[in-house]
């Protein structure tokens, strides 16, 4: 213990001396750092690119969708009408994507609107209350809009006329933080899409 007690002040004094004299004599090693962004890469350690070099990149440069229906093609050419079906917003129970029996009549009205206007299409926007994690809610909101599309299909509407879009918890109808607000936010909004004249 005596040795220890003597050693520490000595070591501290030495360190302090080194620190004040700077790297010229005291520090045998100097690490030159590159200015500018350092980022990812396994080279020198987690999240570092050695020597500040930027990574070469061989990623995709062209848009590639792999076929199938695309998201915006048919929607972007149409005029959205949010008012027409504003009364038909369908509300859901907490954490549920099942269209409740008492909400079913609204789907019938939406189906009638589409039947009476064969050129119109429909965007179903699924939304969630703020409880639940972000991407969980984005999937739940999508599931809610898909449930409405399925309900409309059973009422004779071609699913190809119905587009789904989830906003997760990003577009609450009511900004409040209680059940009164949450019950208004767990919803499908229906946007009628008219072809451009």
């Amino acid at each position: 213990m005596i040795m220890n007690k003597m050693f520490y002040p000595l070591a501290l004094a030495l360190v302090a001396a080194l620190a004040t004299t700077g790297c010229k004599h005291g520090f045998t090693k100097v690490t030159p750092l590159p200015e500018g962004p350092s980022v990812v890469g396994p080279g020198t350690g987690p999240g570092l690119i050695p020597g500040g070099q930027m990574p070469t990149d061989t990623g995709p440069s062209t848009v590639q969708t792999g076929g199938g229906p695309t998201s915006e093609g048919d929607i972007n050419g149409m005029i959205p009408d949010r008012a027409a079906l504003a009364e038909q917003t369908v509300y859901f129970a907490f954490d549920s994507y099942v269209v409740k029996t008492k909400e079913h009549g609204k789907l019938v009205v939406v189906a009638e609107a589409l039947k009476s206007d064969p050129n119109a299409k429909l965007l179903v926007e699924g939304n969630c209350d703020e409880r639940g994690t972000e991407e969980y809610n984005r999937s739940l909101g999508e599931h809610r809009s898909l449930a409405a599309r399925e309900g409309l299909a059973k009422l004779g509407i071609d699913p190809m006329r119905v587009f789904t879009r989830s906003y997760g918890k990003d577009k609450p109808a009511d900004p409040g933080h209680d059940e009164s607000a949450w019950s208004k936010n767990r919803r499908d909004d229906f946007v009628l899409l008219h072809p451009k004249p």
Partner: protein
Amino acid sequence: MKKIIFNFLTITLTAAALNFSRAQQAIDITTTINPFGEKPIPVSLDGFSGEVESVLKFDLYVQGFAFVTPDLAQYQISGSAGGNVTGSVTDKFAKKVILSRGYTGAALRREAHAFADDIVFAITGRKGIGQTKIAFKSQAADGTGEIYVSDFDGHDARAVTHDDAIVAAPAWVPGRLALYYTSYQPGNPDIFYHNLSTGRRSIISKFSGLNDSAAVSPDGSKVAMVLSKSGSPNVYVCNADGSDLKRLTTSEEDSSPCWSPNGEWICFATKIQSRRVLAKVPADGGRIQIVRTAGAPNPTEPDWSPDGKWIAFTSQTSEFDICVVPADGGASPVVLVPGQDPSWSANSRTLVFNRAIGYRQVLSVLDVFTKQAKDVARTSGSNSEAAWAR
């Protein structure tokens, strides 16, 4: 001296416990040694001031160090920041200087981060996180936001999108300055690949409905994601450019896929009979297996640690909690701190996540095994969905 020896032994024992075989480790966690109760390493810090001192304190605190007076310290960190950062570390137990180094050529913050990394390596043998990056989203009250990239401590945040739209779920390409993320900029939520070196980006998935939650395979060649084009939100995998798309699941409702570090599995959140569970599926297709999370209700947002040992996730009760569970299911999940959406650092030691302050989210970093956490510097708006560059 007794205190110092005790801490040293604790650290040695914990390190030994972490090196046990998988089967033994599972038993040890539940019965003998709890790796989440690790004691912080006591260090003293002198000679620094201002920005350099605050960087060193932040970096070391969130990597499991505690600051004490020199007489109680196991390691004494000294130095100065006159012009450039210079410093040394003295191991008072082994009675020797274990690090002595100067730094040149960068801003003081960067030099301090580099010194912190060297301190962490000299003392623990681990590669530090001081010079790593994170990506995250920042959202305004109207729901629109942008994807940002910053230092791991939230400093030097730069918007990489200018979409003025809902954005979501940034994911790094391992080892590259490139991201995948979801943006509603086209109207629909589509998945973008964004090369941050060139600034060029392209849409790799724009099917009807949801295109979300891209996650890049460890070798960078594949992307897992959630698509709803077949009638329910499910996990798909494709090449980095979006080609060769394959559906992996037909479950009720999936979200937030992530990869095992060996690239063999994709773990994701799903529902079985409307009950939320974590599951994993072979990356080239096959039978789904449940990941046991009993005791941590409503699990979502899994992230597999790069060393393969742990899966971090969010559990939801009346609030959100960050939890970890051994990836092999050998032990019950451990609740760490309140928060959401954890993402592992490359050294499998630290998590970045978001937590609520009022109705806003802020990012925080957590040293998993000591549970020491600190909020990072804030970007205006609500900050969430952080992804740690690996």
